[in-house]
C-alpha cells in the first residue's frame, strides 16, 4: 500500500475503485487503495473504523454470535455511528464515498495492527465478525456476485448423495423435508474448521457437508487466511514506512488503544508480598481467583492452565518474581520436594515474568479469554465460575459466601442468560456493599475496583496492608508520546508472541 500524505486540502478523486468494490460493497480487501489522502482524513476514518471494530467486539461479548439479538444489536449500534465507514458496513444505501472510506480505513488499520501477533489476532477477529454480519445481511444476488467475483466455487452435493446421507444430515440440523431442495456443499474439512470444532456439520471421509446457511463459514475461512497472510506481509513492509514520522506515531497510538487497559505493566511491582495473598484473596479477588487460590491451598498443586491464569493475575496485582517463586514454592513443596519443584515449575514462573525463553512479558488473562478459551477439563479448577461451574454447585458456593438468597437467584438467572461478567459484577456489588454498577472485563480490574471500594473511593491507600496500586495507562501516557524508538521496540516484540505455542510446549514438559 502506498500512502502519500501531503498537507493538501482534501481532494475528491483519490482512489481507484477496484473491481471488487464497484460491484458490491462486500469485499475481501484484496487491492490496496491508491491516491492521496489528507492526514486529517487518514486519522478520522481510521479512528472511525476502530470505533466500529470495538463496537463489534462489545456486541459479540454480550450476545451469542449470529443469534437474532446479536444481529439486532449490531444493526442498532452500527447505525448509531454518524460516519461513512459505519454507513458502508451496515446500510444498504451508501454512496461510493462511503465504500471508499470502508476500503481505506481497513487498510490503515492493517498497518496499525500488523505489528504484533496479539494485535493481529484482535484485528482479524473483529474484521471477521464484521464481515460475517455484513455477509448475512446481503441479498442473494449480491452474495452470488461476490462469490463469482472472488472465484469461490464450491461443489454441490448431488441428489443421490443427499439421499445416502439423509439421516446424518438431519441429525446435523438440516430439516428432513427440505433436504432435496437445499444447496449443500461438499468441501474438505480443512475449509470449515469452525464448524468442525463446534460439531456443526456432518463429516465423512474427510469431507464436510455444509448447508447453504453455513456458506458464510466457508467464505470467512477464505477471508481469514487471506487477511492473516496480508498482515504478515504488511508487518514486514512496515519498517519501510519509517521515513515518515507523522504516520508512525499515529499508527502506534491507534493500536495501543485496543482492549482498554493493559494489565501487564504494573508500576507497583513489589508492593504485594506472598504473605499478603491469603488475606487479599478473601477481600478483593474475583471468584475465579478465589477458586484457584482455595484449591491450590487444598491440593498444593494446580494444573497448567490454572497456574497460568492465577500466576499471571498475581503478577498483575504486583507480586514480584521473587515473591511469586516464594509463594508457589511454599504451596507446592507441601506435596513434593523442593528439588522437583525447582526442576519442573520455576522455569514456567520465570517464563511468565519474561525471564526465560523468548522473554516476552506476559499479560494476565482477561475475562473474555478466561471465559472463551481453554475450558477446564477433568482435574482443572481454572476458568470463570460463572461460566464453568454447575449452577447447583455455584449456588452452594454463593450461599457459603453468605450471599442473600435473592442475590443468589439474581446471579443464577444472569448466568442462565449467559451474562457471566454481569453476574460477576453483581457478585462484586453484593460482597462490597456498593451500588456501584460495574461488570469486569478483567480479573485485575475487579481487584482494582475492590481495592478502591475498600479504601474509600480512592486509589488504594495505606489500608489493607499498604497496597498501593496505580493506573498503568495514565502513567504510561505521561512518560512520553510514542516515538519511533518505542515503535521499533515494539517491532522486536513480534519475536515474542507465539504465546500459545510456548504455553503448550511448557505444558508438554511437565506432565505425561
Amino acid at each position, binding site marked *: 500500500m502506498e500512502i502519500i500524505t501531503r498537507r493538501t486540502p482534501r481532494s475528491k478523486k483519490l482512489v481507484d475503485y477496484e473491481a471488487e468494490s464497484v460491484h458490491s460493497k462486500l469485499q475481501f480487501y484484496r487491492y490496496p487503495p491508491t491516491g492521496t489522502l489528507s492526514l486529517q482524513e487518514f486519522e478520522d476514518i481510521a479512528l472511525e473504523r476502530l470505533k466500529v471494530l470495538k463496537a463489534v467486539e462489545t456486541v459479540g461479548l454480550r450476545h451469542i454470535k449470529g443469534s437474532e439479538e446479536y444481529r439486532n444489536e449490531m444493526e442498532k449500534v452500527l447505525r448509531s455511528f454518524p460516519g461513512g465507514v459505519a454507513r458502508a458496513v451496515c446500510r444498504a444505501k451508501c454512496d461510493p464515498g462511503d465504500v471508499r472510506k470502508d476500503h481505506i480505513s481497513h487498510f490503515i488499520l492493517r498497518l496499525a495492527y500488523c505489528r504484533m501477533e496479539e494485535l493481529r489476532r484482535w484485528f482479524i477477529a473483529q474484521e471477521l465478525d464484521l464481515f460475517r454480519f455484513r455477509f448475512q445481511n446481503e441479498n442473494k444476488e449480491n452474495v452470488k456476485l461476490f462469490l463469482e467475483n472472488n472465484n469461490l466455487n464450491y461443489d454441490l452435493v448431488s441428489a443421490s448423495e443427499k439421499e445416502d446421507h439423509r439421516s446424518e444430515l438431519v441429525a446435523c440440523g438440516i430439516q428432513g423435508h427440505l433436504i432435496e431442495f437445499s444447496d449443500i456443499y461438499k468441501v474438505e474439512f480443512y475449509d470449515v474448521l469452525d464448524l*468442525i470444532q463446534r460439531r456443526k456439520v456432518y463429516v465423512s*471421509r474427510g469431507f464436510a457437508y455444509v448447508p447453504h446457511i453455513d456458506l458464510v463459514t466457508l467464505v470467512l475461512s477464505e477471508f481469514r487466511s487471506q487477511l492473516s497472510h496480508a498482515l504478515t506481509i504488511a508487518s514486514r513492509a512496515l519498517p519501510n514506512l519509517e521515513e515518515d514520522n507523522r504516520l508512525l506515531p499515529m499508527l502506534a497510538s491507534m493500536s495501543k488503544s485496543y482492549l482498554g487497559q493493559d494489565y501487564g505493566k504494573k508500576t507497583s511491582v513489589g508492593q504485594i508480598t506472598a504473605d499478603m495473598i491469603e488475606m487479599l484473596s478473601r477481600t478483593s479477588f474475583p471468584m475465579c481467583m478465589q477458586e484457584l487460590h482455595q484449591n491450590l491451598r487444598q491440593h498444593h498443586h494446580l494444573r497448567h492452565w490454572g497456574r497460568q491464569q492465577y500466576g499471571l493475575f498475581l503478577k498483575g496485582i504486583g507480586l514480584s518474581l521473587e515473591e511469586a517463586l516464594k509463594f508457589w514454592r511454599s504451596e507446592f513443596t507441601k506435596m513434593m520436594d523442593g528439588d522437583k519443584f525447582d526442576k519442573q515449575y520455576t522455569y514456567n514462573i520465570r517464563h511468565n515474568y519474561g525471564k526465560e525463553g523468548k522473554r516476552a512479558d506476559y499479560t494476565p488473562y482477561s475475562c473474555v479469554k478466561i471465559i472463551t478459551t481453554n475450558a477446564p477439563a*477433568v*482435574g482443572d479448577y481454572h476458568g470463570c465460575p460463572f461460566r464453568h461451574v454447575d449452577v447447583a454447585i455455584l449456588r452452594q458456593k454463593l450461599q457459603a459466601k453468605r450471599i442473600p438468597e435473592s442475590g443468589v437467584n439474581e446471579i443464577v438467572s444472569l448466568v442462565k442468560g449467559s451474562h457471566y461478567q454481569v453476574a460477576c459484577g453483581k457478585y462484586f456489588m453484593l460482597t462490597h456493599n456498593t451500588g456501584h454498577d460495574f461488570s469486569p472485563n478483567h480479573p485485575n480490574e475487579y481487584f482494582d475496583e475492590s481495592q478502591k471500594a475498600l479504601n474509600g473511593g480512592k486509589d488504594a491507600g495505606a489500608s489493607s496492608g499498604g497496597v498501593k496500586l496505580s493506573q498503568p495507562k495514565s502513567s504510561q501516557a505521561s512518560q512520553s508520546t510514542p516515538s519511533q524508538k518505542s515503535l521499533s521496540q515494539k517491532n522486536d516484540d513480534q519475536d515474542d508472541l507465539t504465546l500459545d505455542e510456548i504455553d503448550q510446549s511448557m505444558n508438554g514438559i511437565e506432565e505425561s
Partner: protein
Amino acid sequence: MAENISYDPNCLPDLLPIYYKRLFPYSLYYKWLHYGGVPKTYFSHREFSFTLKDDVYLRYQSFSDQQELEKEIQKRCPYKIDIGAIFSHRPKDHKTVKAAAFQALEKELVFDIDMTDYDDVRFCCSGAEICLKCWSLMQFAIKILDRALREDFGFHHILWVYSGRRGVHCWVCDPDVRKRLQQKGRTAVAEYLNIIRGGENMTKKVNLWEGSIHPSIQKAIEIVRDGFEQYAVDKQDFLGSDAKMKKVLALISDDSVRRTVEDDFKHVKTSRERWQVLQDRVKQVTSKGEGRKCACVIEEIMLQYCYPRLDINVSKGLNHLLKSPFCVHPKTGH
C-alpha cells in the same frame, strides 16, 4: 499389564544400556520418522528430547541420520525420549537462528488418553494404577477414536501405543495431517472429538439434545452400548453402593424423574437390576412426553462413564512433545 515379574526402578540404569543396545528397534524407528526422506530434512529437523537421570531434561536434540541417533541414544541412555515437531531449522542449532525464524512446521496429530482422568468413574483403582477391570476404558477409547479418525476424517495412518504407565497414545501420521493441520486445525479436530466437558466443578459432563445427536456421537454411543453392561455392571458394579448411585442420580437433571428413580433404586439390589430399572423408568417417562430434559440421559450416562477423555492440550499444539513409542516408562519399566 499383568505384573508377574516385579520391576524395580532402581535397576533401570543397569537395564537401559542393554535395552538400547539389543532391543530398541532403531531401523524401524528411523524408517517411520524419516517418512521416505521427502523432503530430505524431515528427519534431521525433528526435535527429540531426552530425560536423563535425576530429571535432567534436554530439549532440542536432533540427529542427521539413524547412526547418529543410535550413537546418541546409546551414549546418553535416556530414561525417557519425547518426540516433538519438525522445525524450520535443525533443532540443535536453534540458538544460532533468530527466535522468530525458528518455527515448528509440521507434526503428527497426537492424542493422549490418561487413566487418571477417569478417577471419578472407575472404582477399582485410582491415580496412576490400572488393572484389567478399568483397562476396558482404554479399549472403548481406542475403538471410538479410531473409528472417528478413519471414517469421519478419512485418516489412514494411525498408530496406537501403550503409553507405558497409565494410558494410550495415538499418532496420526498421514501426510496431509502432518503438513496441513496447523494449530487451529488441530484444535478443531480435538474439540470435535472431545465431548467430556467441564472441570472439577461440573458434575454433568455430557449434554445431548434429542433429535440432534451428531452422527459421530451416535456411532460412539453404539460402540459404548455394546460393552457398557459388561464394563459398568460386571466390572465396576457402578450402582452397587449409595455413593455410586448418588453419582449416577446427579446426572439426571429433571428433579421429579430423579426422585422417582432414587425411589426405584431402593426396591432392587444389584447394579444390573438398577441399571435396568433406570432405563425402564426413563423410557416410560419420555414415552409419555414428560421429562424432556432427560430424553437422552441413558446415553449421557454411558458416555460420561466410557467416552474417551482426551487431554486436548496435547493435541492442539504443533509444538507439544509426546513420549516416544518404544521408550521404556521409567516408573513402570513397561
